[in-house]
């Protein structure tokens, strides 16, 4: 098991390396840099430009250096916890993003739990009652969830929540709790606001998961060991619970890998519509204004989140499934 963990951890290094290069290329693609457009903007407004500061920033982040050197400055800085400088906010990136990252992680985790709680029973029901009305109805609902664009659903839910529950529009908590220390009331307010993004983000992921779980369980249900157990007179309920369900559980954990990117994608756009204080809205503005280090850190962070998520799912999988754990050893 230990060797497996080490192997998986080592495998992450090249992955993150390639991702960081990819991210850096993308944020460098637009012609010019933020400082140039910033200076032009200030000058057009007749404001003076702090030449010293510009020069300092340019030197600090090596904006005048060739591409690969800039990359190394950025990448090595990241290893030291220095994510660069947000030109837009005039602050180090780390200070700008800290809290938002936390909220993004929180929303993603809650959404995944929500997806599981919904998808698991529905998937089992659909598989064990294949081609029944319940199966068709639930599959259809799932398809609708898959086909409805997240952002529009978010808008409508926001409106309905405001009309029927009086939830304040936008944000993740009522205005009076913003920048306040955590308290019971604040937690309540957050919970009141949290369910909208969670449902909105969860819909598409849930639909996909139900479909995959159903297909997987159906495959298992056709296998011979199920027939054997049935022939021996095992009760249907117990049979499903004892064997195929456990097999499907493996897949359930493995599916985090495909669930996580979609959850994070959904979280970004939903956050923009609902103006949640997460990474979404800030990433959008950072991309639009070429605030490259901020955008780069966000992209890097989101990628890292999925890579770590997949790692966790792989480790969990190895823990519950001896076949995966032992695979390497048998091969030897």
């Amino acid at each position: 098991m230990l060797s497996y963990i080490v192997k998986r951890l080592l495998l992450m290094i090249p992955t993150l390396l390639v991702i960081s290069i990819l991210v850096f290329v993308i944020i460098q693609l637009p012609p010019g840099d933020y400082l140039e457009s910033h200076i032009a903007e200030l000058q057009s407004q007749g404001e003076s430009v702090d030449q010293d500061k510009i020069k300092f920033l340019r030197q600090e982040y090596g904006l005048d250096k060739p591409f690969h050197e800039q990359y190394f400055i950025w990448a090595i800085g990241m290893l030291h916890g220095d994510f660069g400088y947000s030109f837009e906010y005039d602050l180090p990136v780390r200070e700008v993003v800290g809290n938002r990252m936390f909220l993004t992680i929180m929303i993603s985790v809650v959404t995944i739990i929500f997806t599981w709680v919904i998808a698991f029973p529905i998937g089992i029901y659909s598989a064990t009652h294949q081609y029944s009305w319940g199966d068709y109805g639930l599959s259809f609902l799932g398809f609708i969830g898959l086909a409805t664009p997240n952002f529009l659903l978010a808008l409508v839910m926001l409106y309905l929540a405001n009309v029927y529950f009086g939830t304040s529009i936008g944000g993740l908590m009522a205005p009076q709790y913003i920048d306040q220390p955590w308290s019971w009331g604040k937690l309540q307010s957050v919970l009141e606001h949290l369910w909208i993004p969670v449902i909105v983000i969860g819909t598409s992921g849930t639909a996909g998961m139900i479909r995959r779980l159903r297909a997987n369980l159906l495959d298992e249900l056709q296998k011979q060991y199920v027939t054997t157990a049935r022939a021996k007179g095992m009760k249907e309920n117990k049979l499903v619970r004892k064997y195929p369900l456990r097999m499907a559980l493996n897949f359930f954990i493995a599916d985090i890998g495909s669930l996580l990117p979609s959850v994070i994608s959904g979280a970004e756009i939903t956050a923009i519509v609902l103006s949640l204080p997460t990474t979404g809205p800030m990433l959008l503005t950072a991309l639009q204004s070429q605030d490259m280090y901020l955008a780069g850190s966000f992209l890097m962070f989101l990628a890292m989140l999925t890579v770590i998520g997949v790692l966790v799912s792989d480790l969990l999988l190895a823990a519950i499934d001896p076949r995966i754990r032992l695979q390497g050893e048998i091969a030897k």
Partner: protein
Amino acid sequence: MSQHFVSDKPFDPHSIENLTAAQERYYFASQWQLMWWKLKRHRLAIVSSIVLFFIYFGALFCGFLTPYNLHTRNIDFIYAPPQRIHFFNESEFVGPFVYGLEYQLNMENLKREYQSNTNDIQKLRFFCSGDKYKFWGLISTDKHFVCPAEGGQFFLLGTDRLGRDMYSRIFYGARISLTIGLVGIIVSFTLGIVIGGIAGYYGGIIDNVVQRMIEILRSFPELPLWMALSAVLPVTWSPLSVFFGITIILAMLDWTSLARAVRSKLLALREEDYCTAAQLMGAKPKRIIGKHLLPGFMSHLIASASLSIPGMILGETALSFLGLGLRPPITSWGVLLNEAQNINVVALYPWLMLPVIPVIIVILGFNFLGDGLRDAADPYK
């Protein structure tokens, strides 16, 4: 040595096992024929394909089918609500007509309010002359299927902030939204087959590198990457270049699943005898992959490709909604929905959200059709 007995009767291979006509039809049918028979049994897929056909048909003839042009502005009717088509006026049959709209500015909240005037009956005209447009950009004509009465209005789905007819705009938007999925799939299909083909055929290091690359691309959340890439497109580009830019961006992340499928199939198939035979006869890898290996599972590939069209349509819609995708004057469903970005819209002008309905229908349609195709292409079902 005794002689072998050789019967001199004419040899008839069917003398033992005679195929009935139905069996014969089945056993000698081509692969595509078999697929079609299986697909026909998948009722949902057939219904979906008919619906999709009509939607594409509508997009093709959008100029004729709509009462107004894409950019026709009715400045007297800004944010007009949808008009209902009536057939009877005071229990008297008049044929399809709409009541005229009366505009009033509510001085309390400055909201535009429209009321139907039941005395003003505007009969719809059919096969009539209206706004001039160029049919397929070639023939200049002013013929429409339906037009408002002379001097009247006909806003089946209301108007937007510039007084443009939503019904017409949805039809025109379909052209872009529907083609972006198809063009995108062609790009990603080509990429997937070429990259997956090379990885699967050669194996070894090339395969390893491609595999890792695919894993990394797949682990990246799509939308942020799309956002980043489309933010890169220069503002100075012409709308058409932006369209192709966005398509390529969408396709760039989509080829991975196809490449994976091609690779795993090729890895298995290249060990087959017929592949070795082709190699021995000196066929080049390009020919072996293209002529001998790919056709074996082409149907399967097309089926899985059709399942990724909806993702692209949704992607374009999301990007345009955020203002990072297509920009007016190019009109897609996402661009139309961009107007509905505001919570006020939901409260005051909910008809601006209507473009989402065709989006949902098209995505469901492609999903069902793709499911049906996949089942049909699977020889073991």
